[in-house]
């Protein structure tokens, strides 16, 4: 029987520390299994979020040995368990307890993005016609499971705490899905520039690297949105045109 030690951050908004737990590990286990085992056998009150245990719901985000990951999709054989494994909550968000953080800001930020509004239906039966090729890039963005790992690593939020100025990569992906939706009729470009602070992103691509859904956040969502902002705000012809708009 193999044993492994996990250093799990225990604490709340007032503070906390890593605490050692040693538990047995078996074939195929993921980090979340180890946490559950510790919870069942040694620490009933250890707080952790999870739902699906299959990488589908985005609940179990944490920092494993400092790397933002889904605990349910991180197998123990991918990490070195001969040394203690640290498991900490996402550091960008305020602590609630142990591995659970207050991610409510994300829900508020999302609400500020102008909702989907379709054009009038294409067919008399109230339906739309869309080609698969035209929706594939939007479908990439809609794979997002709202794990907020990208928000966790983005330095604009993590280091600079600019929650009021920048909506973060997750919401750039959300806005991109709406902007590139072939039947949507709204324009979010001005909001992206002002309220949602797309200019703060300096394309470090850290968000893309951690996305468990392999969404190419920076290249496919943020850069095209930045281009739209440039087109609309800095293109001289467009600028002139806007001046004469009511």
């Amino acid at each position, binding site marked *: 029987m193999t044993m492994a030690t996990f250093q799990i951050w225990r604490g*709340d908004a007032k503070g906390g520390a890593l605490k050692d737990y040693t538990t047995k590990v*078996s*074939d*195929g*286990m*993921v980090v979340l*299994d180890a946490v559950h085992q510790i*919870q*069942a*056998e040694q620490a*009933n*009150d*250890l*707080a*952790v*979020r*999870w*739902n*699906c*245990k*299959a*990488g*589908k*719901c*985005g*609940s179990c985000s944490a920092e494993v040995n400092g790397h933002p990951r889904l605990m349910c*999709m991180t*197998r123990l054989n991918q990490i070195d368990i001969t040394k203690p494994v640290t498991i900490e909550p996402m550091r960008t968000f305020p602590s*609630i*307890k*142990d591995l*659970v953080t207050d*991610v409510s800001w994300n*829900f508020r930020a*999302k*609400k500020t993005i102008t*909702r*989907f509004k*379709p054009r009038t*239906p294409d067919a008399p*039966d*109230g*339906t*739309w*016609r*869309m*080609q*698969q090729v035209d*929706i594939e890039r*939007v*479908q990439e963005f*809609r*794979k997002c*499971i*709202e794990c907020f790992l990208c928000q966790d690593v983005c330095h604009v939020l993590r280091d600079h705490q600019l929650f009021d100025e920048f909506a973060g990569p997750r919401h750039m992906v959300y806005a991109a899905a*709406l902007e590139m*939706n072939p039947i*949507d009729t709204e324009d979010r470009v001005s909001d992206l520039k002002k309220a949602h602070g797309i200019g703060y992103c300096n394309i470090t691509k850290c968000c893309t690297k951690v996305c468990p859904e392999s969404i190419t956040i920076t290249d496919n969502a943020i850069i095209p949105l930045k281009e739209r902002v440039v087109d609309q705000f800095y293109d001289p012809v467009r600028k002139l045109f806007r001046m004469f708009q009511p």
Partner: protein
Amino acid sequence: MADYQTHEHDVLVIGAGGAGLRAAIEASAGGVSVGLVCKSLLGKAHTVMAEGGLAAALANVDDRDNWKVHFADTMRGGQYLNNWRMAQLHAQEAPARAHELEGWGAMFDRTPDGRILQRNFGGHRYPRLAHVGYRTGLEMIRTLQDHGIHQGIDVHMECTVVRLLKDGDRVVGAFGYERERGRFKLFKAKAIVLATGGIGRAYKITSNSWEYTADGHALAYEAGADLQDMEFIQFHPTGMVWPPSVRGILVTEGVRGEGGILKNSEGRRFMFDDIPDNYKSQTADNAEEGWRYVTGDKAARRPPELLTRDHVARCIMREVKAGRGSPHGGVYLDIAWIKEKLPNAAEHIKKKLPSMYHQFKQLADLDITKEPMEIGPTTHYVMGGVRVDGDSQMSTVSGLFAAGEVAAGLHGANRLGGNSLSDLIVFGKRAGEFAATYAKANRQGTVDGRQVDDIAKWALEPFERGAAAEGPYQVQYALQDMMQELVGIVRTEAEMQKALDGLRELKARAVKVGVGGHREYNPGWHSSLDLFNLLAISEAVARSALERRESRGGHFREDYPNKDAKAGTFNLVVRKGRDGEMELVQAPISEMPQELKDIIEANK
């Protein structure tokens, strides 16, 4: 009454999966104030896990499809124990509900002419499942969530309801706690919609999440509502079996839809060995025809791997019991074999089944384009639930509605894949609509303060017993082991009697469970309370299963292996008797109108 944080809504929806969100949206559209409570964060409910798709007779891929065929398929799949009215409404309304999702931003995969694409699934005669790759549930919940947050609904996330409150015969509120601080919350409401999902956590091997502790079933039961069909649990034939930590995770039926075949350790494609009579005319009798079917040949009949889930699960059990299973107690599901048919099979599989490819690669170190998967049955869905009126979704308690997996009726003895997601939006909408109507016609009732204080006191008892007492997880694991072993796929009278004895002992242990720590986000505490729901509903399952002395759909009795025509005329109803004990009665199924009978006949 002590001072509790109190919220007042016209309609309170408990549960924020597909059914709850759809109900909340509809109730809100009806012009009443709506509160929505859920145990997890918004968007994380079980619905997010659904893979294969949403069944609706859009007839985009095969124009022979229409609601009548869908209705007949649903009834056949449910072995005619379905509430026929629900099966009818569901088949008729699912297409409009699916299109509505598109109007709210859902992006289903497309046909070449730009309409919603549909795929084949077990028990559905024509390609009927609207889908987005294998993440249809995510698409649905996100669409409803993103639409719902702009409808003025008050959302109470990470909040668990522990009891419904009544004023006389009518439901008037709910009492629960929020997870973050562990504080109690009192909800007053004129009408309540239960949309809490299923009970899969009563079993050891399950595809279900931690939330599936039968809360809604137990809340309704405690409030005096009738439950029905609790003996019918769907064991999905294909769950992962290896490594142990992933046992139970679902392997989508889509693998078989794309041509995956089931084989035993001798390499035999055993599903051809046992095709039930009522499906013979629709099922391929050779491998070649099966392959033609999955590649879209409309003249071909479906391969036996796509028979209904109950049947496929039992065939797998039979092979395992006969010693023809795989090393870890399953059988083989092989999609890699299609390389005999397609030159670029590996690419094709990765493109068609990306999530399964990754799931096995990541969790089991197995490349499904090269090797067969080891799979076995996993507890997946409960057909039984709150007995409701087919049109309004109101339970037998006034003002209490139920929709989605927690409600019974639509699926009868066995649910067809894809019929749950459509169920959620069809009956979620109806429940929301009728709850709003009810709320408008009734005043706010009176909450009994003493009753509330008693519940609060009860809920805190695990802390009084403290960490020195037995923890909740040990009792929950013991229950899961027992239900898996004694009230699983294959059932006998003796085993279920034993289960009932076992449940009595577990109940005695549950009232002694204790937890340490404090009330802030304490999963041990939450689990101690969930236990009571699991135990009550496990008893309902065991009692109903004992009483149904025949085999039908999701319920298989080794001691009564055949269908009994007489048992096909009633549903089993469970309720809390006046003495507090569980009461079981047979409720005759009402006569189906001639026009529906004709539809079934025409589609035989």
